[in-house]
């Protein structure tokens, strides 16, 4: 066992390095990914070691980046695309939705599009407009795409390599405010399945389900609730498409209560889908309606207001109390 302690950012960097060493067809593309190593330094040092032909600085044109990545994938390459920030993905949304997601089906399965689109996403770093959004629902809703988000260094390391190995297009959301959080990574481990949820804290009274940046908040909420004598289980969903409903159902059947937490607006969000499906699957187990905690139906606010906008410990605990009150 080779366990190393590293930040999520470093884990992603090591993961990319491993993938590029393993498969010469893996390419990295994006704005500033070369010499600079990306604005978050996730690709730091990779161009130096793998060359400009494999770590490709691109013009500032997101549709062009994804569109050419599709062409490279058609030629047999496995491009890993970096979109600099969440709010900048929309110029590429057309290519992702109308082309990348559908081409495998349109060809009756004869061609594959192993393209990974990495997106540093969500808030909490005091950024300006378009730098803090959580658009995961817009991608999870699209058949043909897979959508995942790691919440810790080990998942960052393993999930990214698994996404690159996948023959399907994967939208890989990186929780940017967690980039510097450190955790243990076993680089020799046999990783779990990419789309399986994981119970990160066991409990008996209620399940908190989250992914990406909100897993940490939910872990803190569970710890705080424990001090009040409430036993809260936390499930890290890890994947938003597909969602591991079997794993979540198993947890809810134990705890009989569910609160889903994400930063994205609640309305029509991932939590809404989970509430509907878990209600269908667990109707006779549930002691309370599935509750949701998330962003408001408003544009992501200026940085000075984001602490109010983002679900924090208190809002999660409030939902826990409301659920337990039924």
């Amino acid at each position: 066992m080779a366990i190393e302690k590293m930040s999520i950012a470093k884990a992603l960097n090591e993961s990319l390095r491993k993938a590029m060493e393993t498969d010469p067809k893996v390419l990295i593309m994006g704005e500033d990914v070369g010499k600079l190593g990306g604005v978050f330094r996730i690709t730091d040092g990779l161009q130096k070691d793998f060359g400009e032909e494999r770590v490709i600085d691109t013009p500032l044109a997101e549709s062009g980046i994804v569109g050419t990545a599709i062409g490279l994938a058609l030629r047999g390459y496995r491009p890993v695309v970096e979109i600099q920030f969440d709010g900048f993905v929309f110029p590429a949304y057309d290519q992702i939705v109308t082309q990348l997601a559908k081409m495998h089906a349109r060809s009756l399965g004869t061609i594959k599009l192993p393209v990974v689109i990495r997106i540093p996403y969500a808030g909490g770093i005091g950024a300006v407009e378009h730098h803090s959004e959580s658009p995961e629902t817009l991608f999870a809703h699209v058949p043909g795409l897979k959508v995942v988000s790691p919440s810790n260094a080990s998942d960052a390391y393993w999930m990214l390599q698994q996404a690159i190995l996948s023959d399907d297009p994967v939208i890989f959301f990186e929780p940017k405010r967690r980039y510097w959080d450190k955790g243990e990574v076993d680089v020799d481990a046999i990783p779990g399945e990419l789309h399986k949820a994981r119970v990160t804290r066991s409990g008996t009274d209620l399940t908190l389900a989250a992914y990406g940046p909100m897993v940490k908040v939910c872990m803190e909420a569970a710890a705080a609730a424990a001090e009040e004598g409430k036993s809260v289980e936390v499930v890290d969903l890890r994947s938003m498409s597909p969602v591991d409903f079997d794993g979540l159902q198993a947890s809810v059947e134990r705890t009989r209560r569910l609160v889903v937490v994400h930063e994205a607006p609640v309305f029509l969000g991932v939590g809404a889908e989970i509430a509907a499906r878990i209600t269908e699957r667990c109707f006779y187990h549930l002691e309370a309606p599935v509750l949701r905690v998330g962003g408001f139906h408003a544009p992501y606010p200026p940085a000075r207001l984001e602490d109010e906008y983002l679900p924090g410990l208190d809002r999660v605990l409030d939902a826990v109390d409301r659920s337990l009150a039924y």
Partner: protein
Amino acid sequence: MTVESTAARKPRRSSGTKRAAGAASARKTAAATAQPHDAEPQLVQLLTPEGERVDAGDHPDVAEFAPFVADITTEDLRGLYRDMVLTRRFDGEATALQRQGELGLWASLLGQEAAQIGSGRALRDDDYVFPTYREHGVAWCRGVDPTNLLGMFRGVNHGGWDPNTNNFHLYTIVIGSQTLHATGYAMGVAKDGADSAVIAYFGDGASSQGDVMEAFNFSAVYNSPVVFFCQNNQWAISEPTERQMRVPLYQRAQGFGFPGIRVDGNDVLACLAVTRWALERARRGEGPTLVEAFTYRMGAHTTSDDPTKYRRDEETAAWESKDPILRLKAHLLASGGADEAFFAELEAESETLGKHVREVVRSMPDPDTMAIFENVYADGHALVDEERAQFAAYLASFEGGE
């Protein structure tokens, strides 16, 4: 001599790399020298609308392109003619099948046969084609079974052929998207060290899309072996070119740093020559080229629109006199390259093709219901599996229950 053949003396090219040096004065006059969009087109032409070969000896600029078709024999000319006639027949049959309710929609290539056959026959087997949804003639040149093209228009699939069998990608309906796929593919070709080339087809309407500009820029920046082949057929559904551009399309290449050239899109020989030239540049590592084939869509944009509502009969009539097929026929007849027996034989072959297409389309089976769930993902997806199972159970619940 016609205006067009006079114009053939001066093939117009923008040569970005050559002209970039003298920038100061060029900048000052750029706006003034840009051709208005409706200027009399000046284009490369090797065969006049009357079917006369433009004499390379008389026209130094034409002499540059004539060598690219110097190897074309009389038999080759008959082959090009056959391609155009059969493509038109296939296209006409598809239009008729749509009118009969056998196809949901059809995008006719009527009038654009020379642009497609000329460019399509310039390609090598190992080149790769990224078409829009109207490249039936190019598909023909690639050896794609034409009846395969009809599946998506009949509604039995979304383009169900294997693109790698004939190096002919799926039809792309979103305008201009495929120019980026072609550019990325060409980047891959260059990385592989291969000497094949990539060609992206699009129309004048697509030239307004940002993706096309991004494709131009990426291909220039990475010096990718891609040929952008724009068929300017003068109309984007009901929008004329003056609603789409202020300067001629081929001139845009200069701004991106590669050559652009306008060719008579109704002249199959000129299209063949210019495309060969552009492909050879790509193979030599000289990067992208923009070819604007100046042509005309003689029919509707698709069977859903009615061109009589937006364009004048005189315009259509003027272009009918430049018909790409009639012009090569006139040449073949005048030069003794083909006799009536050849044309009669081809007519019979056309009839056979038409009959075959009708029969295949009418016997195309509807896809299996459960195909909805097939190939959504390469590696599978739990939700798709769940919904497939639920729907199968739902369908099974009807069996014997009535």
